[in-house]
């Protein structure tokens, strides 16, 4: 969900941010993450999960996740001035539907929402890591 938002609602829609380094940062993080994650799913479905894939899935995130979040936040931040200037996706009063929406404020709130959400997800993954990789001595999942 946040992928779609970052891709379409921010990067695609605000052309000026497309040359930012932060875009490279989150694209790289997402790419590596997804390659590992979907290999993990594929091999799991085939009941042939090489340990290295499992290990990578539950280890790489430690770096990739903060990297991706940093790229995302920086990108949104870079988009802010353009959104404010052009009133992108925003609706002002008066209008016949008696409705308004300020995309600029919405983006700021989105950035703030990372504060509670990121630690929750990150620590959840760390707990999963301990659970999944913790018992490697007991059994091997290969074959």
């Amino acid at each position, binding site marked *: 969900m946040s992928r779609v938002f970052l891709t379409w609602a921010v990067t695609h829609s605000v052309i000026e941010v497309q040359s930012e380094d932060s875009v490279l940062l989150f694209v790289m993080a997402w790419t590596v993450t997804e390659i590992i994650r979907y290999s993990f799913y594929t091999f799991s479905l085939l009941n042939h999960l090489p340990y290295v894939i499992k290990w990578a899935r539950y280890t790489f995130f430690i770096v990739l996740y903060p990297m991706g979040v940093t790229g995302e936040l920086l990108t949104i931040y870079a988009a802010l001035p353009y959104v404010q200037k052009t009133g992108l996706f925003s609706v002002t*009063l*008066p*209008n016949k539907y*008696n*409705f308004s929406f300020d995309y600029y404020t919405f983006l700021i709130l989105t950035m703030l929402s990372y504060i509670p959400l990121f630690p929750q997800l990150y620590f959840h993954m760390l707990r999963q890591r301990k659970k999944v990789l913790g018992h490697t001595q007991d059994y091997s999942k290969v074959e």
Partner: protein
Amino acid sequence: MEHTPYNKLCVEILDAKTKDKLCFLDKVGTRPDAPRLFPAFLARHPQFYPARQSIRLDPKGKSLKDEDVLQHLPVGTTATFYFRDLGAQISWVTVFLTEYAGPLVIYLMFYFRVPFIYAPKYDFTTSKHWVVHLACMCHSFHYVKRLLETLFVHRFSHGTMPLRNIFKGPGPRNCCLQLSVTCAAVFQNCTYYWGFAAWMAYYINHPLYTPPIYGEQQVKLALIIFLFCQIGNFSIHIALRNLRPPGSKTRKIPYPTKNPFTWIFLLVSCPNYTYELGSWLGFTLMTQCLPVAFFTMVGFIQMTVWAKGKHRSYLKEFRDYPTLRSPILPFVL
């Protein structure tokens, strides 16, 4: 099965989770009350007032009801019960009053343009559009009606609910919420009612509010729909109340009465929700405000879920339940 003579009964009460012995009662009193009224248990654990007690024969089983009589339960000479604390309890009446007083007050704050909402030059001014005044009256009427109904009309089948639920939301009047939810869930329901009230009120009472396109015609039609559904909703509540004699917990199939507004029972299981939807559609039409439309839609979805559940439980409970009825919208839903 031979029942043990009552006055030879010993009762032990264990904690459902830890199996610690909480209480042992020798020669239980002569009144064949349900376990939850054991005065000895209450004396030893005064914080667990009766509404908070969930006492059961099996640690994971269902709670015994107030009506259950000790003599008729399948126990031997020593009856073992398991106790579960339902958490701090609050009466349903208090829950609903809090839920409904919020939107009433909040809307009025926007209507009177209390400072810090709109630009300072508009503080304490009033809108020049008469539909805005009408909308305020309708909205306020709706919530005052709900408050009065909660106090004087509704009969609740379960006296209290866990305190944590006050923020989450109680759902239909006669559903029993026994298992407590976390504090986070508590926050949800009041936030819903109060949040939406603020969002709607902001736009309707805004200095830049645009009145309905079709003007007086639209507003008059909307008002008729709104009032019709308010009366309808009230009629249903009265009819449902009259189904259940005071103090009883019996459930019966509701049927149309002499009041024409109840004839919708022929087609719908939960016409109170149908009328509620109608009221808010009327209000949406009256104010021509998108946030109101959103609120109506979200409410409709939630009420449909409740109506379907109620409809299903009616079907399960009554063999002869009328087949023509739909949960909330005649023939459709």
